């Protein structure tokens, strides 16, 4: 009897600094629980200290990628090297900053035999933070005004433009800080520019509570397997340290309208504020799974596995009924790393437990 062919999935975002972990380890964990030994998981990272690269229970092998700032050609060349060694069936990018290049590279990845489930460049661009009001007007979803700012002088003159404190200051990809004065605004602006660059975005503050939804869009205007979560404990970066699943048809409806308007394809996370009247306001759409994606496995809706099935052209698997009231609590844990493994990552950018990565440098 022929052994069943094993699926090889490459997953990025293996960073896991506790205050702001990448989603990659959680995505790999979901895949491992769905497919067991029938999946070979290739962890991809940008730093030799990304812990997911060394977690053998989730990643069968691990490689370093070139930073997105190195350009598409360098990224594709590196992926081609890794593909030669690993024969990747499916690639799941998990970091916002790499998505524009990954989306642009979809045809070349497909030519290499690497499948993806990603939005097109137009859809990706329409959900950037500065374009959310425009998108929401079409999708009939409430959204606070957003203004790109290029100078900290904005915070001294903003009242004349009709802005008031508090307001939210955001980086183009990451970071969001609530500021209550011109001084706080300027400090946040400078910190975000130093870390993420321009533009910095000012978003009107919506009083309420934040709710998040994640799901997979099939590319045919359908949102599948949505999981909704309320954060119950936050890190210093405002990320979920604990959370609980909820179910609100109003939140799901808003997400469906956004998916339909964008003709989204692939994973996404929708971040909304629910005001005192119960109305949802869109804060962000992240073009990837969130770091709390393991909660989807916890409620019988393993979304990374669902994505894999769709990307491989198989029927979408049935998912469990919504299960509000399932909690997660995150914790930090040390993994022991033999110095030899760290050496391989530093010197060769690769660590394989079953395949000799010779030639992949």
């Amino acid at each position: 009897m022929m052994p069943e062919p094993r699926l090889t999935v490459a997953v990025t975002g293996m960073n896991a600094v506790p205050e702001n972990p990448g989603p990659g380890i959680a995505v790999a964990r979901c895949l491992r629980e769905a497919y067991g030994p029938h999946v070979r998981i290739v962890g991809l990272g940008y730093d030799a200290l990304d812990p997911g690269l060394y977690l053998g229970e989730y990643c069968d092998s691990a490689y370093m990628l070139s930073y997105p700032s190195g350009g598409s050609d360098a990224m594709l060349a590196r992926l081609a090297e890794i593909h030669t060694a690993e024969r990747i069936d499916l690639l799941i990018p998990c970091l916002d900053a790499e998505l524009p290049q990954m989306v642009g590279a979809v045809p070349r990845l497909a030519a290499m035999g690497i499948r993806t489930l990603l939005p097109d460049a137009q859809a990706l661009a329409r959900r950037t933070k500065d374009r959310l009001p425009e998108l929401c007007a079409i999708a009939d979803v409430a959204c606070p005004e957003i203004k790109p700012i290029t100078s900290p002088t904005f915070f001294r003159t903003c009242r004349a433009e009709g802005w008031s404190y508090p307001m939210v200051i955001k980086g183009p990809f990451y970071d969001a800080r609530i500021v209550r004065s011109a001084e706080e605004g300027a400090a946040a602006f400078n910190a975000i520019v130093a870390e993420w660059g321009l533009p910095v975005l000012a978003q009107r503050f919506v009083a309420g509570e934040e709710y998040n939804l994640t799901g997979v869009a099939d590319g045919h205007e359908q949102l599948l397997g949505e999981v909704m979560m309320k954060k119950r404990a936050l890190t210093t970066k405002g990320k979920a340290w604990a959370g609980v699943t909820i179910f609100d048809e109003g939140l799901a409806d808003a997400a469906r309208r956004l998916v339909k308007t964008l003709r989204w394809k692939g994973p996404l996370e929708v971040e909304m504020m629910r005001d005192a009247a119960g109305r949802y306001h869109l804060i962000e759409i992240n073009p990837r799974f969130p770091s709390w994606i393991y909660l989807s496995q916890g409620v019988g809706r393993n979304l990374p596995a669902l994505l894999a099935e769709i990307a491989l052209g198989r029927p979408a698997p049935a998912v469990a009924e919504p299960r509000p009231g399932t909690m997660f609590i995150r914790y930090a844990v040390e993994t022991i790393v033999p110095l030899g493994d760290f050496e391989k990552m530093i010197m060769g950018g690769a660590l394989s437990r079953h395949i000799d990565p010779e030639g992949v440098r």
Partner: protein
Amino acid sequence: MGSVKPGDVEAGMNDDRTTAFPDPATVGRLALSDSGFVFDPVSGRSYSVNASGLAILRLLQKPTGLAEVVEALQARFEGDATTLERDVIEFADVLRGQIK
């Protein structure tokens, strides 16, 4: 519900006070445990209530009136009708602020 102010309740003790209660459908979505643990599946919030609070919540999950609630509580808990009535109204006020 939204137009009723707490003062309306205080003003007319003989009026139909059901309008001061949260919508039964809203209270009905709450998951109530015998331990007094309460979970709202829409907001994700959880609460803990004592035995009388739990009894009131269970009563408010169906359309009911203040007199019915007080009568039901009198059968289980000590206290005169006036005190129980005041407690129920106060509890309903807090509930309306928490569950929307």
